[in-house]
């Protein structure tokens, strides 16, 4: 619970956090500047460039439609980031509200919300997502909502446990003794004090969403018509580029997914370390 100034100071001195930020920043630039970076229209086909190997013209070669893989890899950053951030935001927002209400209200409401949270934590999310995504259809919004609506439970649980401890703090009692209403206490007193864990949590939610999106696309239930890393890997599998040993087809998108997720996770852990002093490497 530090003010913003010391937060940035702490963050800057956290090597994981800085590394994560650099990675995420790199991919954000990639997504934003994709039209400038990519040498070709990622959708332009060319029958004569069937699975062209890597060359100075096509750095990563081309796919079975003769589309430039490098350009597609660059554009792929967009979907990953959009889905990751949007789904992460949905998950964190729902988790926050559910956790706040559950922890603060207590009683039956808490019991119900926690049973639902238990349910969502226990059920194998990916199975559920495969089924729901397959049934709902794979538009971008659907994918975001499916991932978001199914990943809020851990956040809710963390927020709830924080709320449970914060609501017992004397400053909350003091406000209560002064006729403060529930909404006031929830949003003026408790909310600002739980936001600190949200940052780290949001990063982890985003990384999970990126992973899930790629996995859903790979399984063919995601949005396979837009350019995404998961789709490139899927194509490599289904069109036999993998079995023909075309390394530059499969390696880059996989590494991109991996590094981007890694970046978010690094940031998440860094934020958690900053917010939760117990994990700090050196006691302050």
């Amino acid at each position: 619970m530090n003010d913003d100034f010391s937060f940035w100071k702490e963050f800057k001195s956290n090597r994981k956090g800085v590394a994560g930020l650099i990675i995420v920043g790199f991919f954000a630039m990639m997504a934003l500047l994709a039209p400038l970076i990519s040498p070709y229209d990622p959708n332009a086909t060319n029958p004569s460039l069937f699975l062209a190997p890597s060359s100075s013209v096509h750095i990563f070669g081309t796919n079975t439609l003769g589309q430039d893989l490098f350009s597609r890899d660059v554009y792929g950053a967009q979907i990953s980031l959009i889905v990751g951030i949007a789904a992460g935001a949905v998950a964190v927002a729902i988790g926050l509200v559910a956790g706040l209400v559950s922890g603060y209200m207590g009683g039956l409401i808490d019991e119900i919300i926690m049973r639902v949270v238990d349910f969502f934590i226990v059920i194998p999310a990916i199975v559920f997502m495969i089924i729901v995504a397959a049934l709902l259809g794979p538009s971008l919004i659907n994918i975001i909502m499916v991932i978001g609506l199914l990943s809020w439970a851990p956040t809710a649980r963390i927020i709830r446990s924080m709320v449970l401890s914060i609501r017992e703090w004397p400053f909350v009692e003091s406000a209560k003794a002064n006729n403060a209403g529930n909404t006031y206490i929830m949003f003026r007193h408790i909310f600002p004090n739980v936001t600190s864990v949200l940052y780290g949590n949001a990063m982890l939610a985003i990384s999970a969403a990126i992973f899930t999106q790629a996995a859903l696309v790979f399984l063919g239930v995601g949005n396979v018509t837009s350019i995404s890393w998961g789709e490139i890997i899927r194509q490599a599998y289904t069109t036999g580029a993998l079995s023909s040993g075309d390394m530059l087809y499969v390696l880059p998108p996989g590494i991109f997914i991996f590094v981007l997720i890694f970046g978010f996770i690094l940031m998440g852990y860094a934020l958690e370390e900053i917010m939760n002093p117990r994990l700090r490497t050196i006691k302050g």
Partner: protein
Amino acid sequence: MIKIKDLTVSYKSRTGKVRALDSVNAEIGNGEIFGIVGESGSGKSTMAMTIMGLLPRNSLIEAGSIEVDGKEIIGLKPEEARKIRGKKISLVFQGAMNTLNPLMKIEDQVAEPLLIHREAKREEALRRARETLEIIGLDSYTWKKYPHELSGGMKQRAVIATAIVMNPGTIIADEPSTALDVITQVQIMNILRRLQREMDITVIFISHDFPLVSEMADRIMILYGGKVSEVGSNRKILEEPGHPYTRGLINSVPTMTPGRRLEAIPGEPVNIRDPPEGCRFRPRCTFAGEGCETYSYKPVEAGQGHLVYCVKYGEGKNAGSS
């Protein structure tokens, strides 16, 4: 006999180095209860940890020496240091609630030092542990219990039993009664007194509670901001306190004497991250004046073994007793 010389310990932190103990000297005689009094940030716990060799990893012993029975213990190899811990000096922690491993039975925890130091086989160790528990006043009912099944007072007794099971020469009791109820506190204190008397153990008794220390200790050392401010026998300190801080502490003890007004010490304890120049008590001291700012903590001998670390000692107003 424990001799502490010029002990200086500091902690590294993000904002820089913090000196928790600064050139502390003390001599603790065999078989006595040596009380150390200090408020938060005075360095009293650091002292306990330094003697035990249990300083956290971000700490640094900058200077000084600690001799136990003539043997230097600072800078010992880990294996050597282990031979002293629990065997020659043992520690009674503060916060009885969390000192015991929740997954182990009481008797196993009490017997553990014997096993660690290979003093006894398991059966023998358990037998001795049970004996010790009985001495401390815990009957067979408690032996096979887990910590969460005992009350705070019983847990603290078990901790004391663990500390004495090896017959160490010295026990360091660091706030042994904090978080206990006043009545339990009395019982724990009585146990420590009895042990010291009957087993001829040296007890280093550390507390923030000045009256409690004065009930217990033969000699008292008062720490303030990592520095010693006064050290001497219990009686001398109470009757002829030499340091304004000591006097302040005495005057603010609520003794329940009818009609007695207590005197407050103004201000707040020193922030050891940013201590003032010279005498650290200076900002709160009513006698502060010339020389205090440059005071180098040269003690004044006020009597046999009674040292006062005040430049104004003996001067004018700072001479009388309370």
